[in-house]
């Protein structure tokens, strides 16, 4: 399999962050992919440019008074005076100096390349350099503090540049011409750090010298004796940069890594880990991927809109957590499709043997009445509790230290038994935990031994760090070992998503899950807690693992996900469900898919059965909305110039049919490999939203709230007040009270926004 040039492992590789095994794997991949090699080169070059620019930011220092206050405090009461730096620091310095040496040579070489190309970097001329601010250097105490003034070619930081204080060294690089190479040679010959030199300085000198003067090039051969990793061949410069740089990364990374691992193995490790843990709770480290609203697209230029369904609901529960705690949610945590899909709608169930039925409703958009709003609803086949196929469940539970708060592990321990209570003797449950190490707490047990299962859950305790990777492996292995053909085979992962040791690479983790999903075992991800909640990781895992993802913030929510919607959560009735809509340009000027930003597929992916897409569970409803600009009213939208070589779109006779769009659905049976197609033509009867169904009103209220919280450019005249009115109008029967809760949340959001205005 070819590695994707956009794989984040390539970045980790280029930056020397991989361990030996991973590094080897990447090198192997690189042999086969020109694009990946190119990517690695570009990443390295970018990193160097970035480092260089960051180095040129002015160096900042504490004031004299601040420094002496620290020094006073650092003196033990009965100081015997000042000695040189401790051995440990020296050792570290030597290692770092060795590492920096490699850096010098690499830069030197690339600098040389630039000069060969006659591409002299003019902004370097006359730049003032001095002691670099690189932290990776240890220096013997220097009698004089150094202030550096740089001429900033980019007014990025509005930092007042300090005037040099007494004794400051300010050096023009012109004076240093030629000195770089000499310095470097000295260092290389002696093989020990020059105490008064710092990495940054070395590097800059090296660069300057080489770009300004035609200094002799350091041949790659000179690198080898030093590295101690010389291979017999490759002395020709013509061997190319890739090879050269790969060697360099080989040489530099083990050095740096061994240095690191040495440090991490020391006895203080645990104590510091705990300390960091404690302090970490003081600030918010939640991670959300950026979401950019889908734009309006012209139907003539983009007649097809293709996306994967998404039955996740986590974003809504997460949003509720924010609003209830008195804060507006971060923009990127608001995923509108997950908000809409949190609620179920009264779509009618499929009549024939199809796994689901589709319904479309069209009316005006409440926030922009001249636009049309198209609501596409899918409803999965219901499966009665007694007809439910037997289940083989593996609870994979994160018991790391971060899971201690009451809304994490303790909530899991109260929530999962709700599900266990509903299971019968046909079902099996196993419990796998993971933290620093993972383990099988309860081997797969049939549910006539409920007491045993409940006791295993009851005894869980949090502590240790998290290695999500091997826990997932073990859970899948357990599920596969107890596989029930024709039944529900599922891993239920309960975590805050903070995987901090073990499989540390998101690409690798998702690949592992993707691989495991082929075994026919599905994945449910239950997100818990706050603070270091990793929304983006969890969504991706569920996405790759043929799974669903819900956020659980209360026992009530656990009941909704695990008991009321057990069918939908546990039983997949169709997988890889894709939606493609073809818009009729005769009626549609432009359209915009609301939400589903991270579910967009290419048009060709629709018919490609190897392309993964979302799953739909028993009884699930899935809702998607398009905002449509009628033909002729799209005037103000950005478009492209008329094409020179093609005529504008020629419409077919079907475009005169009065149909607004053609809805196409593809899905596979849960154990199938080829997809089936459903097609439904849709017409617009010109309904206004006031005449639309309650579900339509309620869903548009949810969308409008989402757009307001995202501060979407497409929110039109939507206000929290109008959202309230819409939601009230669409509330309907609301047996479980979810819609009433939504209305309360809108009120809470309104309070927050108004409160903010007052304090502004």
């Amino acid at each position: 399999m070819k590695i994707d040039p956009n794989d984040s492992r390539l970045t980790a590789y280029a930056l020397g962050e991989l361990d030996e095994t991973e590094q080897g794997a990447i090198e192997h991949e690189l042999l086969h992919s020109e694009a990946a090699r190119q990517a690695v080169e570009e990443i390295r070059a970018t990193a160097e440019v970035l480092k260089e620019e960051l180095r040129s930011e002015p160096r900042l220092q504490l004031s004299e008074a601040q420094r002496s206050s620290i020094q006073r405090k650092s003196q033990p009461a009965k100081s015997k005076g000042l000695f040189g730096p401790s051995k440990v620091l020296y050792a570290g310095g030597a290692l770092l100096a060795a590492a920096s040496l490699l850096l010098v040579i690499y830069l030197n070489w690339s600098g040389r390349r630039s000069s060969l190309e006659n591409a002299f970097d003019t902004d370097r001329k006359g730049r003032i350099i001095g002691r670099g601010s690189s932290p990776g250097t240890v220096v013997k105490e220097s009698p004089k503090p150094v202030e550096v003034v740089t001429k900033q070619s980019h007014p990025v930081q509005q930092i007042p540049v300090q005037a040099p204080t007494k004794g400051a060294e300010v050096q023009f690089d012109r004076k240093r011409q030629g000195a770089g190479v000499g310095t470097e040679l000295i260092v290389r010959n002696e093989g020990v750090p020059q105490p008064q030199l710092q990495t940054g300085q070395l590097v800059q000198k090296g660069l300057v010298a080489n770009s300004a003067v035609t200094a002799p090039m350091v041949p790659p051969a000179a690198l080898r004796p030093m590295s101690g990793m010389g291979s017999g061949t490759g002395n020709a410069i013509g061997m190319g940069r890739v090879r050269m740089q790969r060697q360099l990364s080989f040489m530099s990374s083990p050095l740096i890594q061994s240095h690191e691992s040495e440090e991490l193995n020391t006895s203080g490790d645990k104590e510091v880990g705990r300390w960091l843990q404690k302090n970490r709770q003081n600030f918010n480290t939640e991670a959300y991927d950026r979401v950019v609203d889908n734009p309006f697209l012209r139907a003539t230029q983009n007649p097809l809109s293709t996306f994967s369904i998404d039955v996740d609901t986590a974003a809504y529960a997460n949003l509720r957590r924010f609003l209830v705690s008195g804060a507006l949610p971060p923009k990127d945590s608001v995923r509108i499709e997950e908000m809409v899909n949190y609620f179920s709608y009264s779509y009618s169930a499929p009549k024939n043997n199809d796994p689901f039925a589709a319904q479309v409703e069209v009316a005006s958009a409440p926030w922009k009445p001249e636009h049309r709003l198209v609501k596409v609803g899918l409803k999965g086949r219901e499966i009665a509790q007694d007809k439910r196929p037997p289940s083989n469940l593996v609870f994979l539970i994160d018991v790391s230290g971060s899971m201690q708060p009451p809304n994490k592990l303790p909530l899991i321990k109260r929530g999962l038994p709700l599900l266990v209570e509903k299971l019968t003797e046909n079902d099996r449950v196993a419990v796998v935990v993971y933290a620093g190490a993972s383990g099988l707490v309860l081997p797969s047990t049939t549910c006539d031994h409920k007491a045993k299962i409940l006791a295993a859950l009851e005894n869980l305790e949090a502590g240790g760090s998290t290695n999500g990777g091997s826990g997932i492996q073990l859970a899948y292995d357990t599920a596969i070992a107890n596989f029930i053909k024709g039944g529900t085979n599922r891993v239920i992962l309960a975590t805050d998503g903070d995987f901090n040791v073990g499989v540390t690479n998101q690409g690798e983790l998702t690949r592992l899950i993707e691989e495991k999903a082929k075994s026919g075992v599905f994945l449910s991800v239950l997100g818990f807690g706050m603070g270091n909640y990793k929304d983006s990781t969890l969504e991706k895992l569920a996405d790759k693992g043929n799974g669903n993802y819900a956020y659980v913030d209360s026992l009530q929510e656990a009941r909704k996900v695990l008991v009321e919607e057990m069918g939908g959560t546990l039983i997949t009735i169709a997988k890889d469900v894709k939606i493609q809509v073809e818009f009729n340009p005769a009626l549609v000027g432009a359209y915009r898919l609301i939400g589903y930003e991270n579910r967009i597929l290419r048009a060709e992916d629709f018919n490609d059965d190897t392309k993964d897409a979302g799953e739909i569970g028993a009884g699930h409803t899935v809702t998607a909305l398009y905002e449509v600009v009628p033909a002729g009213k799209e005037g103000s939208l950005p478009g492209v110039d008329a094409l020179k070589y093609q005529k504008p779109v020629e419409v077919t006779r079907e475009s005169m049919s009065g149909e607004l769009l053609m809805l196409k659905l593809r899905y596979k049976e849960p154990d199938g490999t080829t997809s089936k197609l459903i097609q439904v033509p849709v017409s617009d009867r010109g309904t206004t939203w006031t005449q639309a169904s309650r579900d339509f009103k309620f869903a548009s209220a949810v969308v409008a709230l989402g757009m307001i919280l995202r501060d979407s450019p497409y929110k039109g005249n939507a206000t929290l007040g109008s959202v309230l009115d819409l939601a009230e109008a669409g509330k309907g029967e609301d047996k479980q009270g979810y819609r009433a809760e939504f209305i309360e949340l809108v009120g809470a959001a309104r309070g927050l926004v108004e409160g903010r205005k007052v304090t502004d």
Partner: protein
Amino acid sequence: MRSSEGQNQGTDVKALLHRLQGPLIRYAFQITGDVERARDVVQDTFLQLCSEHRASLNGHLEPWLYTVCRNRALDVRRKESHMNPLVETTAEPRSDSPDALISMEQRETFQSALKVLETLPARQQEVIRLKFQNELSYKEISLVTGLSVTNVGFLIHAGLKAIRQNMLAQPHANSKVLRRIK
């Protein structure tokens, strides 16, 4: 091994101070947005270091210092910004320019990697600076920020990609990246 700890502590701190004050102030400045506040934060950080049992920090000094510095800087920011209590959870003060990376007109104006860096979300900037300015490893950045190592890797990957694409899109003569790889 570390029997000379007590004696050397003073010099230790001095060397650390010399080496890390610049990078730490720079880091705190990114959070507080004010150099003087940043200096205060770093002074506090080192004072705390002096009263800490140092043996337990053995090998973790740098991540420890960055973590303390980060916490203090966040405290300062929180106290100073009553106006906007969401500043931390939002963590995305620059999301107003999502199109900055794709608009042709703006492409021309990006001369430096730093400018592109500035358009990234605050958290991503932080991680990227910790990596390339303060030269921490993914693992250390994870310790400091509380993000998972995976996440750190992803943020850096995506950030570098944005910078790279932007620089590659510049006319050849201006593209430092192109010059380096061609």
